[in-house]
């Protein structure tokens, strides 16, 4: 039977199960993947044509269960509830099979057509686990396809089985629980109004009501109806009384036992050779002493490699642009044409010559760090330190992602359970030097004063984050819920995935940021030509000249830093009218440091500010901006005093 509309296929699975990797192999490189719980927090839609048939495929954020504990997981449940997918592809990590099955059982309860991708069977085999996929299929009544998404294995069969289910599949039969639980479920099912609008099926709603009543899902579960509410309360009390545990625990335990039983019946575990190599690596990575040595080494190497690749590239790439610029000056004289041409050369050259040499290696290394699973280990190691600033180890991943770009870092705080932690982490992220600021630090401080100065800058920066966190958390009285963080298995990052991820980000740089850089340079050219830059500079002179001790011309560049931080760097050269290599002829080393410090801190860039507003609200976005300005002024003044 073929439907007139395009069927929707939804990918659901627990975090780190390779769900996004599998999704990508079908969708093309549109969803980003990473190896940290909660990094793909937005859901990704993609229209694809497979075997000549159009499909809407959706990658939902990884979720441990359908009882959401954080906003990212809530996305998964609300989507499943409101969208009524035509097919659910449940991606189960074979190496953690018995736990993954608990989500599978919940999904089966939804009563939608379903296929299971038993993914990462290679990792499972390395761990000494063998799973009889055919037996799982027989017991669950759901097609099971073993896959290794990373190498594209099993994907073909998964597509075939998916179409089979789409065409003539019946929804699977929901699992049955113990008799007393079934009684309670039936009681609530009967209390549900027959025309309940959002219900995928009454049984699922009844089970979810038992588990989730009072957990903020009232509106779409229909909990608001007084009769339903009374029935749910009665049912929950009955279960709690009979079993001596809260109702949600009873359901969780029922599901857990079924999953364990199923895993035992279908899996063989060969003890003795369970992942000895990975375990030994982990013992070193999370060693109480060596772990920290490695962590420090990883970070030092990170920036050292970026600088070692970036700075010679930068010198090399800027040469032709400098030549072009002097050639233009000789040919075009001093008219408007020259100013516009100069702005164009500065904007284009700045993007290629200054930004990309540092941006590219940083993206590649960041992607490798993310995919390897190291971020979770860093979270484990740094948890104790994070407690000093009112947070815990789960915020380490958003912070480290912030070194790439603050915007996705703020989005990734959706993986944190409490609002307090999300807000605190989000308003601290703008203090993390993102790739744009790293470019400025490496291109100015490391290039002109030496890499050690840059290292000092980063150390001071981390201290600033810590102090700001400590200070802000004084005002947040609500306690943090404490750390529960999964440590996913280590994965060797695959070059293909790294390149794809980096390529995506470079593409978005070329599409959005670079035009902004070129446009900004052109605007500056016009301002200079019409002598309008003076007004802005005069206006800012008290701050720029008297406060920071910087040249008068730099005032206008600070204003544009709000759009993109690199823009200030490129405009700085243009405003001072010098080439990159002879910058020191017009400013001193101290002024370079002051400029960098001020630009780095003075305000979150526009996109970061917008994201902060969206995720934490207006109040906290302004608190963060205010905090940034205060810190920038204080630090720049301090640097001026010291140097």
């Amino acid at each position: 039977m073929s439907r007139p509309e395009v069927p929707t296929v939804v990918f659901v699975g627990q975090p780190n199960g390779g769900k996004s990797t599998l999704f990508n192999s079908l969708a093309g490189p549109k969803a980003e993947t990473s190896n940290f719980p909660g990094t793909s927090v937005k859901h990704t839609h993609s229209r694809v044509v497979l075997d000549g048939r159009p499909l809407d495929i959706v990658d939902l954020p990884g979720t441990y269960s359908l009882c959401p504990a954080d906003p990212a997981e809530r996305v998964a449940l609300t989507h499943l509830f409101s969208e009524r997918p035509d097919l659910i592809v449940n991606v189960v990590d074979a190496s953690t099979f018995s736990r993954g099955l608990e989500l599978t059982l919940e999904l089966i309860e939804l009563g939608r057509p379903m296929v299971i991708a038993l993914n990462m069977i290679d990792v499972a085999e390395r761990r000494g686990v063998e799973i009889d996929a055919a037996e799982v299929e027989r017991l669950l009544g759901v097609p099971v396809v073993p896959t290794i998404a990373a190498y594209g294995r099993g994907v073909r069969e998964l597509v075939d089985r998916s179409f089979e289910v789409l065409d003539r599949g019946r929804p699977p039969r929901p699992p049955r629980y113990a008799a007393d639980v079934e009684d309670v479920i039936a009681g609530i099912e009967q209390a549900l109004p027959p025309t309940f609008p959002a219900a995928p099926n009454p049984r699922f709603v009844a089970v979810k009501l038992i588990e989730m009543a009072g957990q903020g899902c009232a509106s779409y579960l229909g909990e608001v109806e007084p009769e339903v509410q009374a029935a749910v309360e009665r049912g929950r009390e009955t279960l709690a009384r009979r079993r001596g545990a809260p109702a949600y625990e009873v359901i969780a335990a029922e599901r857990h036992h079924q999953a364990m039983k199923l895993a035992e019946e279908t899996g063989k575990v060969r003890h003795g050779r369970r992942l000895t190599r990975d375990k030994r690596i982990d013992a070193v990575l999370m060693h109480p002493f060596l772990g920290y040595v490695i962590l420090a080494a990883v970070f030092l190497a990170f920036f050292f490699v970026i600088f070692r690749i970036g700075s010679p590239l930068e010198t090399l790439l800027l040469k032709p642009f400098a030549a072009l610029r002097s050639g233009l000056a000789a040919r075009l004289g001093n008219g408007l044409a020259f100013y516009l041409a100069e702005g164009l050369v500065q904007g284009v050259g700045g993007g290629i010559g200054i930004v990309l040499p540092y941006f590219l290696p940083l993206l590649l290394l960041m992607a490798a760090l993310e995919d390897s699973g190291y971020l979770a280990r860093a979270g484990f190691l740094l948890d104790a330190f994070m407690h000093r600033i009112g947070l815990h180890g789960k915020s380490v991943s958003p912070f480290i992602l912030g070194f790439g770009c603050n915007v996705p870092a703020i989005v990734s705080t959706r993986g944190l359970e409490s609002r307090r932690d999300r807000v605190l982490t989000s308003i601290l992220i703008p203090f993390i030097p993102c790739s744009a600021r790293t470019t400025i630090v490496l291109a100015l401080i490391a290039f002109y004063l030496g890499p050690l100065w840059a290292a000092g800058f980063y150390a001071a920066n981390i201290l600033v984050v810590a102090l700001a966190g400590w200070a802000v958390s004084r005002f947040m009285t609500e306690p943090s819920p404490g750390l529960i963080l999964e440590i996913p298995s280590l994965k060797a990052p695959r070059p293909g995935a790294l390149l794809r991820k980096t390529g995506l980000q470079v593409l978005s740089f070329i599409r959005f940021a670079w035009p902004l850089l070129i446009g900004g340079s052109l605007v500056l050219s016009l301002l200079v030509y019409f002598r309008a830059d003076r007004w802005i500079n005069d206006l800012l002179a008290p701050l720029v000249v008297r406060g920071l001790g910087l040249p008068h011309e730099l005032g206008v560049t600070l204003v544009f830093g709000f759009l993109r931080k690199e823009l200030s760097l490129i405009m700085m050269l243009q405003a001072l009218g010098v080439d990159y290599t002879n910058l020191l002829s017009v400013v001193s080393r101290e002024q370079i440091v002051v400029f960098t410090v001020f630009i780095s801190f003075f305000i979150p860039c526009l996109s970061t500010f917008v994201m902060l507003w969206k995720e934490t609200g207006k109040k906290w976005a302004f608190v963060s901006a205010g905090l940034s300005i205060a810190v920038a002024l204080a630090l720049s003044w301090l640097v001026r005093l010291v140097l």
Partner: protein
Amino acid sequence: MTLLDAPAGEPLRIVDLCGGEAVRRRLLALGFHRDDLIQLDGRAILRGPLLVRNCASDTTVALGRGVARQVVVEPAHEPA
């Protein structure tokens, strides 16, 4: 005893999950239930988190001390 006082590297059985509902729900979702066999794989310095492995699903989580204090365990005998 709680997980905080448990010996490392030996099989343990979860006797009870205490603490607030949010913490218990999170532990259940991550596959840590009453009667499960777990093992303490390591402790971070400076009163940092504990590394806990679930023997059945072979998953590892880092638990902060506040959370670990809520997990009551007893030594379990290795299954033959």
